């Protein structure tokens, strides 16, 4: 049951909790965006959300000691969990589904009109892989894409004015990444300078 299988660069379509997600190839995002706007009537870009899946599921399963994996590809494997010296393990109840790449970029689309529908258009990319800009399809993507670059370090390809938006222009690093520490920013104008 795939309604959007004709989308350019179609990878998969899934529905969960009443929300439809369509994953497309990163390279053909621009064409897919135009297809969804022109052919399917998604004229409104509600949101562009990014997520960093570095360390996804690495907490392991809580509660008992596991064994080393038979091979790196094995899924039904429980990594070692619950350090006896640190009780109250923060581990998971079961391992989450593995993700295809490190970052997901989700375009929350809305068909604004008499028959409203919502859809999540999703692409996946690794660090440094450029994601095409959709600013010419939905001008509303402007701030969102700048934020995706600023906060997550997603290289947006083809944005005419890709500079930081929430952080300072000379900021180093991308704060929403999982490897960016919480509270790790340098203190300016301190005595140590």
């Amino acid at each position, binding site marked *: 049951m795939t309604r959007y299988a004709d989308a350019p660069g179609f990878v998969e379509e899934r529905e*969960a*909790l009443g*929300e439809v*997600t369509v994953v497309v190839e990163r390279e053909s995002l621009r064409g897919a965006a135009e297809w969804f706007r022109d052919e399917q009537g998604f*004229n*409104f*870009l*509600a*949101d562009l*959300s*990014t*997520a*960093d*899946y570095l360390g*996804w*599921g690495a*907490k392991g399963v809580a509660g008992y000691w596991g064994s080393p994996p038979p091979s790196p590809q094995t899924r039904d494997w429980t990594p070692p969990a619950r350090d006896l010296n640190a009780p*109250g393990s*923060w*581990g*998971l*109840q*079961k391992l*989450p*589904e593995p993700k295809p790449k490190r970052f997901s970029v*989700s375009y*929350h689309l809305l068909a*604004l*009109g008499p028959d*409203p529908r*919502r859809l*999540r258009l999703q692409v996946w990319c690794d660090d440094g892989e450029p994601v095409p800009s959709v*600013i010419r399809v*939905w*001008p*509303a993507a*402007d*701030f969102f894409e700048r934020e995706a670059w600023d*906060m997550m370090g997603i290289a947006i390809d083809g944005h*005419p*004015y890709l500079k*930081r*938006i*929430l*952080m*300072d222009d000379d900021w180093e690093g991308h*704060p*929403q990444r999982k490897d*960016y520490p*919480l509270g790790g920013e340098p203190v300016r104008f301190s005595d140590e300078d």
Partner: protein
Amino acid sequence: MAIAPARDPLTNRPRIYEGSRIPERVPTILEVDPVLREEGDILEINFGPNHPSTHGVLRLIIQLNGERVVGLEAVIGYLHTGFEKNMEAKTYWKAITYAPRMDYVAYQANEYVFVAAIEKLLQMEIPPKATWMRTLMLELNRLHSHLVWLGTGALELGAVSMFWYCFRERDAILDLFEMVGGARMHTRYFQAGGLAEDIPIGFYEECQRFCDTMPARIDEYEGMLDGQAIFLERTKGVGLLSAADAVALGQSGPVLRASGVDWDIRRSEPYLAYDDVDFDVPVEADGDVYARYRVRMREMRESVRIVQQCLDGMPEGPWIADERKVVLPPRHELHTSMESLIHHFKLVTEGYRVPEGEVYVPIESPRGELGCYLVSDGGPRPWRVRFRTPSYVVLQAAPTAMSNALIADLIAIVASLDNVMGEADR
């Protein structure tokens, strides 16, 4: 033979202006025409970030040709506090306190959208009393937000007394919030599963008194502004935004409805009790500052109607779901029940686990579409939280609405967009 005026296919009304005014190269930056830059006497000024009319810390870099705005860029981020990052390090029920602090005017809308996202992942059933009370609180909050907007917006146009009148009613709403939540702002009254506390004794009477007086107060505000020549001169025909441009720029809420687009998430994708209450969606066709003012004034009347219906239809019963793996057990059980004590301890120290998945929950906040994108890995802390905040998106429309405006009108236009910078910068 008369030619029918060009109608907008989106709104079926006459177009506000022909074509698009969205800047060509970058949609959110108005650039000075190169010819004008060579020939004209361009003055570049910096407006903000610390200026009372910017509703927070918005900085605008403005290029002026005489009194006309010919170039504009909005610079934001001065209030960036990393809410989304911080929430990843908290358990869900601690992270709820972060959400309302982003928008310190429409806090309960932000609180609700995060709670709604959690509940969607948990697939929880909410008792009807909590559903109706949440609707009531969200509408009171809409009134609160519009009152703050009206007071400060009119103040910036010189109507100083409006501020005092609006804050009188705002205070009455804050009293109601204090009554239910114990705090005047950031009440944290919504809990995953329902409400944090039962509705207090005496609330219905107080709220009824508010509903009885409020329509007359709105008449008062309109009486003060609608007949005032200066206010009308400064708002009518100023800050135009066409329906097509508003949709292209992702506008929502009162700004979109003031451009003639009949769109309200409360009606198109009903949540809470909005399906069961009767309300109209005000739409104005002119797309100017005055239309945005009219939409918000009419929305206030509708909100009073909804609050009244919630008061009349408030069901009896429990105010929070009986789901011991998520909801704190009743306090009195802790002294007698071992299981309750264990549940309390686990929920407070470790938090509840939310099943793996990703959701995007949109609601109609006082400013427009407020969305929460929540990813869970199955653990007790959110993997990723992101808010689609209307204040952030509305700033994208500023260069389009302000192209060729007078510098004095800039204040009126910024006010009419109703951006709260805490929410824009997060």
